[in-house]
């Protein structure tokens, strides 16, 4: 984990957080720092503790151990418990939690109690920016899902939180709408300079939105990195699998290399004899004419529109490999092809299960 610049405290700094509900250890020693102005994604399966972490930061749950600091100020820790309303964070709920008895405008002004009138004008302006000014007098349940999402976002942003927490903010939208709303949301976050921590289970969403991604598993942070670094240089098999499907070839390190039927892959960072898995994502294979690389046979072709995926059988490999080609591609089932590895895209990772 990279530390923020010492001159400016992290917008959010969490240390050794532990949280337990009955027998479930939701958080088991989580440490994390979010830099000012960044959008961080908390990525993980359901039940990995990411939503709990969000609720602890918001003040809706109390941790059993560890500390939470916002801009350097201790808000949760031994003997300290700042209630949610005094933390100055915003939270956008997965179900939006719009107050059904209040209009859109009243919802948005709910958090502005005790603020100068300029704040109300600013909130109205925000509503205008997201194209909902015409709906200000409507009740939330009369709006579409996408409109409700925007109201929830504006409501969370209106009081000017130092940190915005988003709990699966796009999961209630259908796929077509999700991409656009996602872009609009990111644009608004950037425009308002808001630091954000977003919970998601969708790696694609995390990659699209976040400056950095914190990958969680079983109440712990597994890896924190930029999206590209996490995708291209996952530190564990779990991280590699979470970001993308891959064919895995179990083997051992010999002479600083991991041997596979497709050739040996350099892996000097791993100890001699260590069990590893060589992960071949579709982009790690280049498919060419027969004779160009190892001989292979096309078993099946799945056409996805913009691309197609070839399932390839190779001598010496029990499971098929997958390769991605743009468009429909020139090959069909039964065709003989040649396959070569793209060394940069091959991942060699310690085999946690074999150990």
């Amino acid at each position, binding site marked *: 984990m990279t530390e923020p610049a010492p001159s400016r405290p992290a917008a959010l700094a969490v240390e050794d957080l532990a949280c337990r509900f009955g027998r479930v250890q939701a958080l088991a020693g989580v440490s994390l720092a979010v830099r000012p102005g960044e959008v961080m994604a908390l990525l993980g399966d359901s039940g990995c503790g990411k939503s709990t972490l969000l609720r602890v930061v918001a003040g809706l*749950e109390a941790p059993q151990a560890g500390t939470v600091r916002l801009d350097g100020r201790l808000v949760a820790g031994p003997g300290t418990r700042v209630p949610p309303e005094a933390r100055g964070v915003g939270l956008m709920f997965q179900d939006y*939690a719009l107050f059904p008895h209040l209009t859109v405008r009243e919802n948005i002004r709910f958090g502005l109690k005790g603020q100068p009138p300029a704040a109300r004008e*600013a909130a109205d302006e925000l509503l205008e920016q997201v194209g909902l000014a015409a709906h200000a007098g409507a009740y939330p349940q009369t709006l579409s899902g996408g409109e409700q999402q925007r109201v929830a976002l504006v409501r969370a942003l209106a009081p000017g939180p130092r940190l915005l927490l988003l709990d699966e903010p796009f999961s209630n939208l259908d796929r077509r709408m999700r991409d656009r709303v996602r872009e609009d949301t990111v644009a608004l976050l950037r425009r308002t300079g808001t630091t954000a921590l977003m919970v998601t289970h969708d790696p694609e969403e995390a990659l699209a939105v976040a400056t950095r991604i914190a990958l969680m598993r079983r109440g712990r942070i597994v890896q924190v990195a930029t999206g590209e670094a996490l995708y291209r240089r996952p530190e564990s098999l779990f991280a590699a699998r979470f970001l993308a499907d891959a064919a895995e070839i179990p083997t051992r390190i010999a002479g600083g290399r991991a041997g596979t039927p497709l050739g040996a892959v350099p892996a000097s960072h791993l100890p001699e004899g260590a069990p590893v898995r060589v992960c071949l994502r579709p982009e790690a294979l280049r498919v060419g004419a027969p004779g160009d690389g190892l001989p292979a046979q096309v078993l099946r072709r799945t056409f996805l529109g913009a691309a197609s995926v070839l399932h390839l059988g190779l001598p010496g490999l029990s499971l098929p490999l997958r390769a991605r080609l743009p468009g429909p591609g020139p090959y069909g089932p039964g065709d003989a092809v040649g396959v070569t590895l793209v060394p940069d895209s091959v991942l060699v990772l310690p085999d946690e299960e074999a150990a």
Partner: protein
Amino acid sequence: MTDRDGLIDRDLDGAAPPRRAAVPVRGAPAVPAPRTRAPRAVTTGRAGRPGLLLPAWTLAAGLTALLVLAPVAALGLEALQGSGGLWPHLLAHVLPPALHDTALLLAGVGIVVVVVGTGAAWLVAAYEFPGRRLLDWALLLPLAVPTYIAAYAYLDLLHPVGPVQGAIRALLGYARPRDLVLPDLRSLPGCILLLGFVLYPYVYLPTRALFLMQSATLVEAGRSLGARPAAVFLRVALPLARPAIALGASLALLEALNDIGAAEFLGVRTLTVSIYDTWVNRSDLPGAAGLALVMLAACLGLIAVERRARRGRGYAGAAQRPRRMSRTPLSGPAALAALALGLVPVALGFLAPASYLAAEASRRLHRAGLSGAILSESLNTLVYAALATVVATILGLVVAAGPRLLGGRWHEALLRCATFGYAIPGAILAIGLLPPLAALDGLLDGASRALTGAPLAAMGLGTGAALVYAYAVRFLAVTAGSSEAGLARVPRSLGDAARILGRGPVGALAKVHLPLTWPALLGGALLVFVDCVKELPATLILRPLNVETLATHLYGEAARGTYEDGAVAALLIVAVGLLPVALLLRVSTPKVSP
């Protein structure tokens, strides 16, 4: 998951810092300058306003629970003092027959309410026939008739020289009453039938709702497995409806135990009547307290049996809104028979007594006009019921919101204690309240004499405060229950959102929970108001001297055997009692897709 709430909201020391709007003021470019975040100091010193409100809330909830439990504790203390030489007498001559009659009464009433209530519920849930919609709500009407009013009406209706027996004799050609002696209503079987046909809606209401909620697929599965409709009822629908039947029957039996008027008018010496008699006629408060403890044990036993009957089984069916069971259409004689069958309980439980009362009341009004006494009694009834409703609603909200606002097992326990009152019959509650209130009065009076030399007019017992107290304790379960149900329907994220947006727990309650739950609160308040108007035993014991309510007036006339303004008073009570029937019907009809 529930006590996760308990982890939050404890420490409220941090004062809410001012927030800044996130967007530029009008006219500024869309991209704002980087915001300056005001540094906010952690205040861990003096607690702010919410910091004081929350302990106050806990205190209020605790006091409410204490108010409910005080009469029970007092009963125990009173009974321990012994009743001189009278307790052996009570044990030998009063308790055994009272227990015997009460047991028989409960068994009989239980059978009648279960058979009539379940049968009626199945009739309107499973069959379609002309008049079914009418029957749907008409079957609830007996709820408007308190047991003592039904007894009052039927005593006159079925009197040997009354209209019914007269008509039968005329039909059969007998001239004098003694030529044809019909079974007397004033007997245990008479009391059982009467209570049964007035109290069956307690079973009908939840059972009907459960039949309507039952997924069509369960019944269809039964049919497809070869069971005939009658077998489906017995083997699928009835076992599935068991918790609703158990709940309804236990409520009906608690009402039967609570009844004092009907049993006394019909000459059945139940425990309640014995308690009242022991206190009023023998002036034996410890003895009455001892009997009351026995009766309280019976009530708790009933509730335990009901809990047991519901335990551990799955009844709810699928989580999604189920498809409603389609009703079997009936036509011709079958439809007519169904309608006639369904009308029997309505006629016996409501139409007959209500129309008798209407006729008697109008005759009385024609002859003597509206007496001043009735007006002042109506006012008394209204004032006490309204005061008690306000108190019960506020206290109910306080105890029901405790677990939500503050969380934790502690508040959950307080809520359970505070809603214990529904299990305490009015007579027991009143007897239990007498000693502490008398002690309090004595204390205040003594203090007044010591300080000013002047005696103090009675405080608790003399002013009707005791009556309001008893009503509130007895019906707190209704308001707390409806508050709890209403609050539970507000998604947790809404409360969380209010907190995140800067409101404290009490602010969230006021701005989010209350606006979303007020229909449930009003519904609960209406039920309590009507229950207070109908309440008889506690009113009889605790009303201030020379104060009459509609219910006590009716009791007095019936006890004396006079029938002056009684019918008018009874009709007024029944009219008020009709108010919540519509509400109950709406609330208990599950929303399922057609």
